[in-house]
């Protein structure tokens, strides 16, 4: 084979590899700059009891999940059974952030599909959502004992993600 043909073949293979990697990446998964940083603190009223509030400070010292959900969010229904199963095992408490939703809609949704949350807080204006860099609901954050975000799941939590990423990480963080 001539040097020229080798060159062309080499360039072709490089291009194929570039496209094979580039076109299979998911452009919706933007790496969050918040992973490895302290979870933005908040104090928000509870969904079930607006007179009471929850603050992130209460969770210091234990590992927990923050799941951003809404009654209008279609993919949230997809992940809901997974969260219900997780809640049943009690491996890690899941706290809900009811995002840009109406209270009655959120409550009705939980009544209809089950409530996997230790508790849910409401963020009707989506302000805390902005602090957490939420752009596609559902999103789930794994927060460690020191209050640092260690993992962010964009989009629904699937059984694979739970088994392969979230639960092993929670186990490791609990031992830290």
């Amino acid at each position: 084979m001539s040097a020229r043909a080798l060159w062309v073949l080499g360039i072709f293979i490089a291009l194929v590899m570039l496209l094979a990697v580039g076109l299979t990446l998911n452009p919706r998964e933007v790496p969050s700059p918040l992973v490895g940083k302290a979870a933005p603190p908040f104090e928000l009223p509870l969904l079930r009891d607006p007179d009471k509030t929850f603050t992130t400070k209460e969770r210091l010292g234990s590992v927990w999940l923050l799941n951003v959900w809404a009654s209008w969010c279609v993919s949230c229904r997809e992940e809901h059974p997974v969260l219900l199963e997780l809640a049943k095992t009690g491996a890690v408490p899941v706290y809900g952030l009811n995002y840009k939703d109406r209270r009655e809609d959120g409550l009705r949704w939980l009544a209809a599909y089950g409530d996997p949350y230790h508790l849910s807080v409401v963020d009707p204006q989506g302000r805390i959502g902005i602090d957490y860099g939420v752009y596609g609901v559902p999103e789930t954050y794994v927060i460690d004992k020191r209050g640092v975000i260690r993992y962010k799941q964009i989009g629904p939590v699937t059984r694979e993600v739970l088994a392969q990423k979230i639960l092993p990480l929670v186990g490791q963080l609990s031992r830290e």
Partner: protein
Amino acid sequence: MNRLFWVLLVVPFLAGRGLADNQPDLDQRVAAIAAELRCLVCQNQSIAESNADLAVDLRRQIREQLKEGRSERDVLDFMVQRYGDFVLYRPPLKASTFLLWGGPFLLLVLGIFLLARKIRSVRRPAPQLSEAERARAAALLGTGKE
């Protein structure tokens, strides 16, 4: 009665003028920042162009922060802290974005190099054949001896 009518007619315009004095300036600043930010929900639009819920919220956020007297730089930093460099249409130059900024220039240099090589090879004078080679070529081509 008549006078009251005129007063009522004119007052809204005066009020409007008062507002107009500082609004357009703020609007322009909000729009300028919004045009620099990528909407993460509909990724091929800027926050200024998009009507997605999140874009509307972020435009409101920009407006509030500017009203509070923060600078353009502060607002952009606020967004980057939450959504990463990806939200900026003009991300800063660092190791992870080097290929993005430098890539076109690398390709340009590569192109110039290849072009120069090509031009040089075209210009190179045809090789001179020795007497023996000439004879062999003639024999192979069957044109006989000169």
